[in-house]
């Protein structure tokens, strides 16, 4: 199998970002590193978000936000490579089940960097849905989505969380890492803007 295989992966990266932004409402977003951060910023630039959290830590950071803000929905979005690097967070969610947390894994089967030619372990057969169930997630709380319609349904599910959505994203929709969209705020600005948002303050003009 090559890293560029799109078999079974039909969701475009921009479509995934648009679907998350359309469904998030007032949810706080934490993104992992890579192309998804810029795509999500482009589809919802004025919403409270932490972009480009370091590899392996987007979902763990989202756990902390969800626990600190139990009345607020929190969504983490990170790639399969990042999720594999931070799998412990999925076990911690299964143990403490913060109901206001949704985890979206951008499962494109590649490390989305450089020329995108190196497959991740999910690109070589690892199944994050099975892993999550093995870590203690109820099967009913975990969705594998393979197209825009099922992604939209999963994101708008009325069922209480936590929820895990493993989205099969077409790696062919990734460009090379140079020239990608980037968030219009840096990692410091996004943290300040989130804090101001939570405190009910607006950013100075």
């Amino acid at each position, binding site marked *: 199998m090559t890293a560029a295989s799109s078999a079974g992966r039909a969701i475009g990266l921009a479509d995934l970002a648009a679907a998350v932004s359309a469904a998030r409402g007032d949810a706080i977003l934490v993104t992992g590193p890579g192309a998804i951060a810029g795509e999500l910023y482009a589809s919802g630039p004025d919403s409270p978000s932490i972009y480009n959290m370091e590899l392996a830590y987007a979902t763990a*950071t989202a756990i902390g936000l969800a626990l600190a*803000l139990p009345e607020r929905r929190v969504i983490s979005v990170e790639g399969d490579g990042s999720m594999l690097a931070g799998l412990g967070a999925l076990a911690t969610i299964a143990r403490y089940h913060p109901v206001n947390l949704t985890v979206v894994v951008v499962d494109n089967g590649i490390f989305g960097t450089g020329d995108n030619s190196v497959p991740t372990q999910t690109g070589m057969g690892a199944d994050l849905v099975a892993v999550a169930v093995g870590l203690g997630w109820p099967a009913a709380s975990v969705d594998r989505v393979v197209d825009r319609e099922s992604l939209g349904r999963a994101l708008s599910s009325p069922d209480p969380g936590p929820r895990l959505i493993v989205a099969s994203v077409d790696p062919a929709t990734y460009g090379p890492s140079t020239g990608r969209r980037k968030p219009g705020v840096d990692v410091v600005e996004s943290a300040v803007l989130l804090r101001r948002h939570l405190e009910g303050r607006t950013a100075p003009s």
Partner: protein
Amino acid sequence: MVTTRTLQDLDGFPAAGTTATRVVERMAAAGVTLAIYLPDSVLTDVTRTLEQDPRIPTIVCTREDEGAAIAAGAALGGGLPVVLMEGSGVGYCGLILARAQVQRSGFLVIASHSPALGERHDYHAASRVVGAAVFGGLGIPYVVPRSADELVDTVGEALVTVRGQRAVVGILVPPSVLT
């Protein structure tokens, strides 16, 4: 044993009680909202006391850097978190501690072992040096308390700095201080 009465003790915090209960009392008084930990022999009394205290929710993480990331998220959400771990765990935490410092989502790290004081066991050789190395390399201020009283005061004062400066602060606890 000579017990030093500190300004904080005279100011309303009891000098009596176990060191662990005094540490947790100081955390509660400072407004700690969440404690995340991975079990460790030196810090066992503190984490056990935290688990029994309804004022401070506790989370057991799978690895220390995950715990630090949870703390960073809780800080971003307006909380005042504490992470407790063996010193070895600080070695895993370099990247997320750096991110927390950069984006000013501060929290307190209490880690066991220090480079110089009371380290009997060869298997703590890496644990005793990595904490100070990571904190020092990242410019994270840290303190090595020499006594139980000093630990209690340090926790209270460090939490003032965490909140006031939105910074990560470390405390490296020599084994003799708590065991």
